[in-house]
């Protein structure tokens, strides 16, 4: 009988590898988000993490995403990001929603500081898009190992109407039972990649052959390790010009991933302030 031979195939099967375990848990969370909410979207910054999240969503739904991908376009992204985005939208048949602040097109906006700039161009653009599309759930590719504040997140993290994160009283989350009772004018942030490390993402990109923007690969001894708006991103010194080389570099690196990101560092507790105002 065919089922008996099939069973013997797996009788000595090893446990899932760590990457398989991460992938399967993420797919479970993505499907849970889809099942528990009616209006959802995945935030896609076109960076390696959110591109991995879009890849996992394609796996979860057997090829085509049943909800839109949203790009928060500050008008200050690298040109490679726009080219990559438009190519993949066509190739993967994505339903793209672009969220943009009215001030994104200003040539030299006079923001007082980076907190105000990030809040206006990212958080407020997102607020407007959520209000317009009435999204109840947003999937985001943040990870615990990026920042100590993100490390404290839940997989399902409610936000109130003002986008506030009540981090001092987060819901209990046990045995894969997640908070879903958001209520009017609120939404839930869902974090399927929360458990992944930077190295895991790159090993997964390597294993799966996930396409990423060329900014990550070294040119003339420098590469971007974390990508956002062009004015606030600094490349790191690196000769890693391929995915294999990046994986090797990260195994031994002692430099923090977001060391090139200016908005985290302007003031003490900057990330906490940004996030409590609704930042990702």
């Amino acid at each position, binding site marked *: 009988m065919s089922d008996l031979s099939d*069973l013997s195939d797996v009788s000595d099967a090893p446990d899932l590898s760590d990457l398989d375990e991460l992938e399967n848990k993420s797919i479970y969370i993505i499907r849970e988000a889809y099942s528990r909410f009616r209006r959802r979207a995945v935030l896609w910054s076109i960076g390696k993490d959110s591109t991995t999240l879009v890849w996992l969503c394609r796996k979860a739904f057997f090829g085509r995403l049943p909800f839109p991908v949203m790009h928060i376009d500050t008008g200050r992204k690298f040109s490679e990001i726009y080219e990559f985005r438009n190519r993949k939208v066509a190739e993967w048949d994505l339903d793209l929603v672009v969220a943009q602040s009215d001030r994104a097109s200003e040539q030299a906006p006079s923001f007082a500081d980076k907190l105000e700039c990030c809040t206006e161009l990212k958080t407020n653009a997102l607020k407007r898009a959520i209000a317009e599309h009435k999204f109840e759930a947003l999937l985001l590719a943040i990870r615990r190992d990026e920042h*100590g504040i993100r490390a404290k997140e839940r997989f399902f993290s409610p936000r109130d109407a003002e986008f506030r994160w009540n981090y001092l009283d987060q819901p209990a989350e046990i045995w894969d039972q997640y908070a879903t009772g958001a209520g009017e004018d609120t939404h839930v942030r869902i974090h399927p990649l929360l458990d992944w490390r930077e190295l895991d993402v790159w090993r997964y990109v390597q294993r799966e052959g996930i396409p990423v923007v060329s900014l990550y690969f070294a040119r003339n001894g420098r590469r971007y390790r974390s990508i956002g708006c062009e004015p606030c991103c600094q490349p790191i010194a690196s000769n890693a010009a391929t995915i294999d080389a990046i994986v090797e570099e990260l*195994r031994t690196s002692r430099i923090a991933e977001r060391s090139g990101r200016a908005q985290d560092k302007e003031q003490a507790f900057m990330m906490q302030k940004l996030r409590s105002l609704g930042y990702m």
Partner: protein
Amino acid sequence: MLLPPAFLPSSEITSLARAMDTEWLRIVVVGHVDHGKSSLIGRLLHESGALPDGRLEEIARGAQDGLPEWALLLDHFSEEREQERTIDSTQAFFATASRVYRIIDAPGHREFLKNMVTGAAQADAAILVVDVEAGVLEQTRRHVAMLAMLGLRCLIVAINKMDRVGGKRGPFDAVSSSVLALLRQADMTPQCVVPISAKHGWELAGHAPEIGWYDGPTLFEALDSLPKPAHLSSQPLRFPVQDVYEINGRKIIVGRIESGRIARGESLMCLPTGQTVRVATIEKFMEDRTSAKALESIGLTIEEPLHVERGMVLCDLKQPPRAAGQFEANVFWLARNGWARGDSLLLRCTTQQSPCQIERVRRRVNSSTFEVVEDDASHLDATEVAEVVLSLDQPIAVEEFGRGKPLRRFVLIKNGELSAGGTVTSAPRLAK
């Protein structure tokens, strides 16, 4: 699966490094407030070389005695730093020569018990930290009770702040025996009891001359000797249906295999209806699969044109769980708002859910003293544990004590808030 050539190890170094990364364990650090949980984790990150450049200097700045304040590595909220206490659980990573550790820091205050449980519920094993001077205190006991409720029995005890007693054996032995007595009450046996000083790094990565009398494992050695969690694939199949997708006219049943495995062509029981279905195909995007195993999120199609929906459970035909509308359970109440007779609750167990009532509270127990507060109680307060009888509007598939975990664990939702967790102890057979 179509793999790019990059997947193949290109050199011995790459394949060795891959092997080093592929095993990991999740460890929660629990214990009373101020017994040094966050400090221990901070120090472990340092000893294992996991800290990025500049972080050590950052936390050493402003330290009164010149020694770094290790807890600052974990306590990132401004409120946590001002109040010098952990509010929510967090996670950090480090690797030893043999595996990767995901370390979960759990807050020690009573008021943050739901955060402690959120952290501990994700762990494979625990480190219980006890201050050698202070000994077993209220949250030491409560955390042990919560570990027992969560079914987390793989444990190392770390007796901390050994520098305060000059590394002496006497105080260590005294505290150690009271911890062992406490664990016996909870029916738990630790893998080992290690005397440490998180502040000075004693007995973490290497042996400390100050504790020369101790000949047991260092904390790193103790961690590396913890067994891996049991292999779930060898248990009977439990596949709770998460959703059903219609793709190109085919109905794909998706979900995660909680235990056991599924093969194409196999016949399965569908609960709670009890119908038999046969697996036509196993679906994973861009993969051609004939079988799948525990913890895989998969899709499958069945041969019968049956209605299948979220909350049904596909199971092993010969060893099915029990469909029950009423069962006995232990619950631990986490929400600030307690429970009172008549409250309407929603029970969730994997993807199954049903409105339910606590029919009876046989015993209401203080989770720190383990004393029975009341028999036949009509209310429960935050942090209390209880033996209860639950009755559900719709029967669900559950497992009794001693059987597989996934269908024994449930949570209770009150007013939209996850308020309690629990485990099934016994379920009567449904009358036919």
